[in-house]
């Protein structure tokens, strides 16, 4: 679901449907009741390859001590509000 133009699609939920066309309509009915979105993508669960909780350490821990990957070592000049 994309909430507004310019934003990225965000996962909002899962549903049952016999095919993609009905999945799209079901998603419209289930997830846009309160004006949540302007665009919907549906993806069959079988097409998703996900990381496993068992692999969490190997996948994500190595990034924990690499602070230099964050752009936090720059001096921001005064008066630049939205750098």
């Amino acid at each position, binding site marked *: 679901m994309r909430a507004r133009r310019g934003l990225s699609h965000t996962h909002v939920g899962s*549903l049952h449907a016999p095919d993609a066309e*009905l999945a799209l*309509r*079901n998603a419209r009915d289930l997830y846009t009741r309160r004006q949540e979105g302007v665009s919907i993508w549906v993806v069959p669960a079988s097409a998703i390859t996900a990381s496993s909780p068992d692999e969490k350490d190997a996948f994500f821990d190595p990034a924990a001590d690499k602070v230099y990957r964050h752009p936090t070592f720059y001096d921001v000049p005064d008066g630049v509000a939205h750098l």
Partner: protein
Amino acid sequence: MIGPFDFALALGDDALVAAQRLAEWTTRAPEMEEDIALANIALDQLGAARLLLSYAGELEGAGRDEDALAFLRDDREFRNCLLVELPNGDFAVTMAKLLFLAAYQLPLYTALAGCADERLAAIGAKARKESAYHLDHASTWVRRLGDGTEESHRRMQAAVDQVWPYVHELFAPDPAAPVDPATLRADFDARVAAVLDEATLTRPESGWAPAGGRDGVHTEHLSFLLAEMQVLHRAHPGARW
């Protein structure tokens, strides 16, 4: 029909009774997703009904608001078409009814959006988008069931045959109305024919054409529907929640 009051009342009653019938599916639909979809469509119809009945009350000028019109009239005073009051039947019958209703309401509301009466034009402009979705939803199911298995085809064709006689009433000429229903027939026929063709269904021959809803002469089904819809308001007048 005579005058704008009767016109707004008839359209409002169509939407109100359709909403009540569709809402009967809540917790009973074939699957959860469809349950929500039918409830959504029912709420669209209810929204249109509220606008139309409120406006009808103002046109009448007798102090009746939307609640008075919805809850304190008897069946003979309702002006809805017979199509919407028919029982839901199985899912195929509900989809046939929804297909015909939406294929009528879409060109109706579209024409209304361009009419001289500003209030009706605003209601039409809002409701036509909803009707377009109702038509899409019903068409999707009619195509799938018609062009599905042998059993689904049989039941969908039976549903179309069963409901078809009731569509003629929708297009009874009324040249004095803000939108003459007779002018909508060609659009309706074209839309319905396209869906039925794709669904491998046969359009029934037009013969028996029951009518009377616009004059307050209804099937027995409406009285039962109204009894359920009105009982709370009649037992506790003015109740709020």
